[in-house]
């Protein structure tokens, strides 16, 4: 059965971005309707050309640098391409960063306000990272 999963991605740390990307990609590729809302420290990694390394929270985060671990950016991209996940930038975060949704990688959708995101999330499972 297909579920509706809404993910709020706020943290800029490697572990949280990785877990959010894993849930988004596996869920979307398994037929769930996945929407990810990016705000706060999570958004800037998706500015075109960005190559900043996400800082680790703890020892485990260092293990994620292993070459066999799919990078979170790749997993979010696969979530969008293989499973039609919607990746949405928070309009407030875009304003504070003084950028627009055109400055983000192409898998990202339109600038989205919190009100619209929450309305669309009605009845969905809401996960926050």
């Amino acid at each position: 059965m297909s579920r509706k999963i809404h993910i709020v991605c706020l943290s800029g740390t490697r572990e949280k971005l990785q877990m959010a990307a894993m849930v988004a990609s596996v869920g979307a590729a398994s037929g769930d309707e996945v929407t990810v809302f990016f705000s706060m420290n999570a958004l800037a990694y998706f500015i075109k050309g960005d190559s900043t390394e996400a800082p680790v929270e703890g020892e485990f985060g260092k293990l994620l640098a292993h070459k066999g671990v799919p990078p979170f950016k790749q997993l979010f991209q696969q979530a969008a391409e293989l499973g039609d996940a919607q990746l949405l930038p928070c309009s407030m975060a875009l304003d504070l960063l003084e950028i627009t949704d055109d400055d983000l990688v192409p898998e990202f959708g339109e600038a989205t306000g919190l009100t619209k995101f929450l309305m669309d999330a009605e009845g969905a499972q809401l996960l926050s990272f």
Partner: protein
Amino acid sequence: MSETKVIDACNTYCPGPLMELITYMKQAEVGDILELLSTDQGTASDVPEWVNKIGHEMVSSEKVDDIWHIKVRKAK
């Protein structure tokens, strides 16, 4: 004519092997068999879950010398 495609996802971690399989599954024809090679333990249990949910067909799953060989037939 259906064919078997081998996908070597050894030494990648969850959900890498599953994503590899799904990428090739999208490109495959109905009836094709995809054989996923993985050293990730979780993959051996996760892939059949995914296959059953999506409605493809598990052909076989066996571990040979620490490598899982998971064969899936594209059903739709």
